[in-house]
C-alpha cells in the first residue's frame, strides 16, 4: 500500500512542486527592488507543465470564452492536478477536466499537518529579520505611515472617550489593527476602490479625509458628507473612492466584484479592495463573492482582518478550518497569510497582490492575522468574555504601532521630539475639530427626504409638508439645532 501511494505521488509531480514552489514569492535576492517580481517566468522544473496540459480541455476552455474577456493566460495554476503523459491511460474525463484516478480510498484530512505559515518581515522588536524579503519603502512613506498609525490610534482613543461622555451616540475603534489599516492603504493607489466593513477608517485617513471630516460624520452635523443619515463610523467619500460603510456584514464582498468588473470594463489600471473580519467569512456573501471573483477573473483584493473575535465569538467557534487563508484555494484564488501587526509585511503583501490583481485580472485573498484590542464597539464590554491580561498583552507587547516605530527610529527617520510634537499637535487638532463639530448645526429638515430618489417624489413632498406643519404647531417638542 505504502509503495503504491508513493508511486502515485511521484507520478503526479505537479502536487509536490506546487507545495514547495510559491510562484509569487519574493525570492532569490534578499532585498529586491520595489518592482514586482511576480512576472518571472516559471521555474525550470515546472516548465514541463504547459506541454502536458490536456489539449482537449484547453481547447474546450477557450471555446467557452469570447474575445472580450482577455485575462492574461495564466494556465499554469490549473495544471497542478494533471498527470503527465505516461499516465494518460490512468486518467478519466469528466466535466471539469481530466482527473487521475486511484484505487486507494483515501480521504483528504480536514487540515494539513502544519498550519499555513505567516509572512512576516519585522520581529517583535521592529528589527527586519535576516533574509526577509519585502518591498522597500522610502523615508517619506515610512514617516507618513507611522504618523497615520499614531493619528488613527489617537483618534480612536479620543473619540471613544467622547462617546463615553455622551457627546456622540456610538463609536468603534480599530485599536490593535493600525498596521492592517495603514500598511494596506499605503500600498494602494488612489484609483483603487475601497469597500470597507467598518474597522478600516485608517484607509480613509491615509487618502486625505481630514480629522474635521471624520468628526463631522460622528456628530452627524450639516458638514457631514452623509448628511447625518448614518450612525457614527459609517464614513463614505466618493472623492476618496471609499464606499460608504453599510452595517450588514459581508454585503460589500459581492459588491467588490461588481466594482472590479466595472474597472475591468473601463480598462482601468486599478482594482477593487475589500476588507472584512473573521466573522464575515461565515456569511454566504463571502463564499459567493470569492467564487464570483474567481470565475469572472475580477481584479479584487480580499483582505480579511482575522482579529480573533466577532463580538464575543472567538474564531474557534466561527470556523473549523485553518483560518481564512486555506479557503482561497477552495475557490481557485491565490492567497497569503500575513502578520497583520507587521506594517511592512502588510505593505509588501498588498503591494504585490495589487500587481497580481491588475496585471493578471484575478482576485487575491490576504489573511492578516491580528488582534482586536478594543471592545467590539461602545456597546460592548469585552472583559465579559475574554481575560483582561490577554487584552493587555496584545495592547502592550504586541502593539503594531510601537513595533513599526522602532523600525522607523532605527533607520534614523524618527525621534522622541517628533513623537511628542505629533501627539500633542494631534490632541489639539482633535479637540478643536470636536468643538467645531459639536457646535455646528445639524442637517436641515429637507435632508430627511432628499436623496431617497434622484428627485423628490410627490408622496415624500407630501410627507415633508405634513411634518413641517406639525413642527410649526409644536415647536417646543422639536430639537432647536435642526434648521427647518
Amino acid at each position, binding site marked *: 500500500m505504502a509503495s503504491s501511494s508513493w508511486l502515485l505521488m511521484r507520478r503526479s509531480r505537479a502536487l509536490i512542486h506546487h507545495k514547495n514552489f510559491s510562484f509569487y514569492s519574493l525570492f532569490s535576492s534578499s532585498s529586491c527592488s520595489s518592482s514586482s517580481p511576480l512576472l518571472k517566468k516559471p521555474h525550470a522544473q515546472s516548465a514541463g507543465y504547459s506541454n502536458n496540459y490536456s489539449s482537449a480541455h484547453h481547447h474546450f476552455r477557450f471555446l467557452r470564452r469570447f474575445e472580450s474577456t482577455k485575462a492574461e493566460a495564466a494556465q499554469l495554476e490549473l495544471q497542478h492536478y494533471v498527470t503527465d503523459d505516461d499516465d494518460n491511460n490512468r486518467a478519466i474525463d469528466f466535466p471539469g477536466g481530466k482527473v487521475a484516478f486511484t484505487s486507494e480510498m483515501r480521504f483528504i484530512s480536514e487540515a494539513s499537518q502544519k498550519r499555513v505559515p505567516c509572512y512576516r518581515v519585522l520581529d517583535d522588536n521592529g528589527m527586519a529579520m535576516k533574509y526577509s524579503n519585502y518591498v522597500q519603502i522610502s523615508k517619506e512613506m515610512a514617516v507618513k505611515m507611522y504618523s497615520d498609525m499614531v493619528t488613527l490610534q489617537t483618534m480612536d482613543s479620543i473619540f471613544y472617550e467622547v462617546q463615553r461622555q455622551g457627546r456622540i451616540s456610538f463609536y468603534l475603534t480599530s485599536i490593535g489593527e493600525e498596521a492592517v489599516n495603514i500598511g494596506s492603504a499605503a500600498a494602494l493607489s488612489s484609483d483603487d476602490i475601497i469597500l470597507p466593513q467598518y474597522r478600516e477608517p485608517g484607509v480613509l485617513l491615509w487618502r486625505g479625509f481630514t480629522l474635521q471630516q471624520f468628526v463631522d460624520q460622528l456628530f452627524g452635523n450639516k458638514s457631514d458628507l452623509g448628511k447625518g*443619515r448614518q450612525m457614527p463610523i459609517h464614513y463614505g467619500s466618493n472623492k476618496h473612492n471609499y464606499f460608504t460603510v453599510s452595517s450588514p456584514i459581508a454585503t460589500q464582498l*459581492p459588491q467588490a466584484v*461588481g466594482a472590479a468588473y466595472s474597472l475591468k470594463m473601463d480598462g482601468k489600471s486599478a482594482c477593487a479592495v475589500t476588507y472584512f473580519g473573521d466573522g464575515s467569512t461565515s456569511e454566504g456573501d463571502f463564499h459567493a463573492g470569492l467564487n464570483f471573483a474567481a470565475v469572472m477573473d475580477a481584479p479584487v483584493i480580499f483582505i480579511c482582518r482575522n482579529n480573533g473575535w466577532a463580538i464575543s465569538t472567538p474564531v474557534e467557534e466561527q470556523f473549523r478550518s485553518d483560518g481564512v487563508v486555506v479557503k482561497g484555494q477552495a475557490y481557485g484564488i491565490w492567497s497569503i497569510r500575513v502578520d497583520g501587526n507587521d506594517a511592512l509585511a502588510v505593505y509588501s503583501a498588498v503591494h504585490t497582490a495589487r500587481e497580481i490583481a491588475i496585471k493578471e485580472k484575478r482576485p487575491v485573498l490576504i489573511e492578516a492575522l491580528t488582534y482586536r484590542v478594543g471592545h467590539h464597539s461602545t456597546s460592548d464590554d469585552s472583559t465579559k468574555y475574554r481575560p483582561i491580561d490577554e487584552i493587555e498583552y496584545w495592547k502592550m507587547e504586541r502593539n503594531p504601532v510601537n513595533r513599526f516605530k522602532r523600525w522607523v527610529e532605527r533607520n534614523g527617520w524618527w525621534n522622541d521630539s517628533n513623537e511628542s510634537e505629533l501627539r500633542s499637535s494631534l490632541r489639539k487638532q482633535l479637540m478643536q475639530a470636536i468643538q467645531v463639530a459639536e457646535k455646528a448645526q445639524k442637517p436641515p429638515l429637507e435632508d430627511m427626504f432628499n436623496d431617497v430618489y434622484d428627485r423628490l417624489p410627490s408622496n415624500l413632498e407630501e410627507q415633508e409638508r405634513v411634518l413641517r406643519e406639525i413642527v410649526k404647531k409644536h415647536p417646543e417638542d422639536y430639537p432647536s439645532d435642526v434648521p427647518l
Partner: protein
Amino acid sequence: MERDPRVCVMGEDVGHYGGSYKVTKGLAEKYGDLRVLDTPIAENSFTGMGIGAAMTGLRPIVEGMNMGFLLLAFNQISNNCGMLHYTSGGQFTIPIVIRGPGGVGRQLGAEHSQRLESYFQSIPGIQMVACSTPYNAKGLMKAAIRSENPVILFEHVLLYNLKERIPDEEYVLSLEEAEMVRPGEHVTILTYSRMRYHVMQAAKTLVNKGYDPEVIDIRSLKPFDLYTIGCSVKKTHRVLIVEECMRTGGIGASLTAAITENFHDYLDAPIVCLSSQDVPTPYAGTLEEWTVVQPAQIVTAVEQLCQ
C-alpha cells in the same frame, strides 16, 4: 445597450443560453460575454455585484431567473440598493435595473409563482413598475435603464408570447404613469400585469351586459400614479382593484389605503379588491386556476358594485 456602453446585463444563463425566457437572446453574441455576464447561482451576490458595479459607474441590469429567487437578494436590495444613495449623502448613485419573470404561471409550483411586488413595496429608495404589453415593456425598460434610481421591473411568465406591432423608433415611457386601457363611465377597474387581460376579457362581457367600465393598467407600482387614478375615481365614483398579489399586504391593499385616504369623498361605495387567496400556489392545474382572479369573478364584482 448599443446607445450606452455602460449598460450591461448579469444573471444566470443570460449569456449564450439567452436567458430562461429568452429575453436576452442574441445579446451575448452581439456585445460579448463581458457585457452579458453569466453568473454563478447566488442571487444575493450577483445583485450585490450589480450594486457595486452601479456605484462605480456602470448601468447594470440584473436578471432574476424567476422573481421568486430574488427573495435571496432581499438583503442587498433592501439594505444596500434602496439605501446607499441616501446614507452616503447622495455621493453614490445606484442606477440599477432588477428585472425578471414573476407571477403565477402554468403549474410552475409554489416557489416559482411568487408575487414579489408585495414584499418589495415598502423598501424606500426603489421604484417598481410592471409591464404588460410588448409596447409598454420596451418603453418601461428603456425608462428604467435611463433612470438614476434603482428600478425593479416586473415581467410576467405568461406574457412573453404576446405579439404586437410596436414602433421601430426609440420611445421611452414614464415610470410613474398609469395607462388608460379603456375609458368608461361606470366603474374604475385598476389592474396591472397579467390581470389586465382577465379584466379586458371581463370587460367584453360587461359591455354586452350594458356596463361601461374604465380600465386602467396602473403600471407604476411604486409610486402609484394617483393623478390618473384620482381623475378616474372622481368620474366614476366606484373602484374595483384586480390584482394577482395575495389578499394580505399586496399592492391592492396599499392601493386601497391610498385611494381611501385621498379620494374618500368621491367614492359612492367601498373599494372592492379582488386578489389571490393567501395560499401558496398549488401545483394542480385546476386549483392553480382558482387561486387567481378569473374574469367571471370580475364580472360579478362589477355587477354588485354598480347596484
